[in-house]
């Protein structure tokens, strides 16, 4: 029987923090858009940007994981526009993810599935499932939880 496979985007937030989303869940990549600060928010999501007449939240998982300088990746930060849906049938919503490098596509197959690593990472409570790729356990993240819930609610 043939194995099931799906295309995904690999997102690198910092050198030691990666995640994946489905191919249909990224719609655009921006280079250094204008960001606006929102007070009294968390270190990982305290900014918004304007995209197609919408105000989108910007989530930066690298902001909490790059306290060590060696975690930083060279090159410019890019901003990926993601799309998600809170409930089937509801209008699509968008949010932005800060990435250390351009996202890249990969094919994920059933035999790449692996257990959640016990990392105590900020991604733990946002993870749907996990797969193994290039010596990383890559979490597949739930964008609704990423953009709709404050970190303290997770």
């Amino acid at each position: 029987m043939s194995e099931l496979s799906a295309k995904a985007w690999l997102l690198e937030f910092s050198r030691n923090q990666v995640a994946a989303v489905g191919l249909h869940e990224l719609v655009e990549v921006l280079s250094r858009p204008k960001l606006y600060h929102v007070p009294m928010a968390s270190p990982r999501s305290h900014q918004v940007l304007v995209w197609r007449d919408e105000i989108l939240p910007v989530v930066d998982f690298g902001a909490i994981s790059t306290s060590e300088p060696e975690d930083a990746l060279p090159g410019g930060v890019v901003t990926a526009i993601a799309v998600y849906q809170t409930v089937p049938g509801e209008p699509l919503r968008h949010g932005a993810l800060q990435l250390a490098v351009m996202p890249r596509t990969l094919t994920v197959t059933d035999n790449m599935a692996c257990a959640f690593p016990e990392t105590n990472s900020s991604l733990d409570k946002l993870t749907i499932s996990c797969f193994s790729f290039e010596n990383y356990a890559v979490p597949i993240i739930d964008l609704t939880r990423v953009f709709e819930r404050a970190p303290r609610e997770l």
Partner: protein
Amino acid sequence: MNAASAVVGGVVSGWIACGFDEITLLIPMEDAGARIDADELDSASGHLQLGLLRWQDDQWPAYRLDRELIPVQWQTNASTVVLPVCSNGQARGIVCDQIRVFDHPVAVSLHPVPGCLRERPSPVIALGLYETLRVGLVVRGDSLIRHLDAALKSMTP
């Protein structure tokens, strides 16, 4: 009641955009007085007060805020402007770099604060999009005054 009025809980005839520390507060005109220059403030001695403004036969303190909306030490100068923010017979002055007036309610389109940004209780009730691409923080006079009082109280030794 139009969309803006529904979000802010009252009639909005226009907006005041008050800029400092690379953020912009968007305040309904109904909650703001006419701008004054810093040299019109009376001297003040309270913690972090930069002066006292006169509003409705009383005197009220003026503060400079940082980008987390917390009062900070600040040295006023000749170009400093102060926006009186008022509610329920009270006022506070907000020391700004720039004040702009949009005398039409639809000059600002309102958007909810996204869930992932609602980490702590905040006086920001919505985000406002104005001049096509600019984003401001929508606050009402009462919530901003309550927030300032609470912030100052928490700083008192």
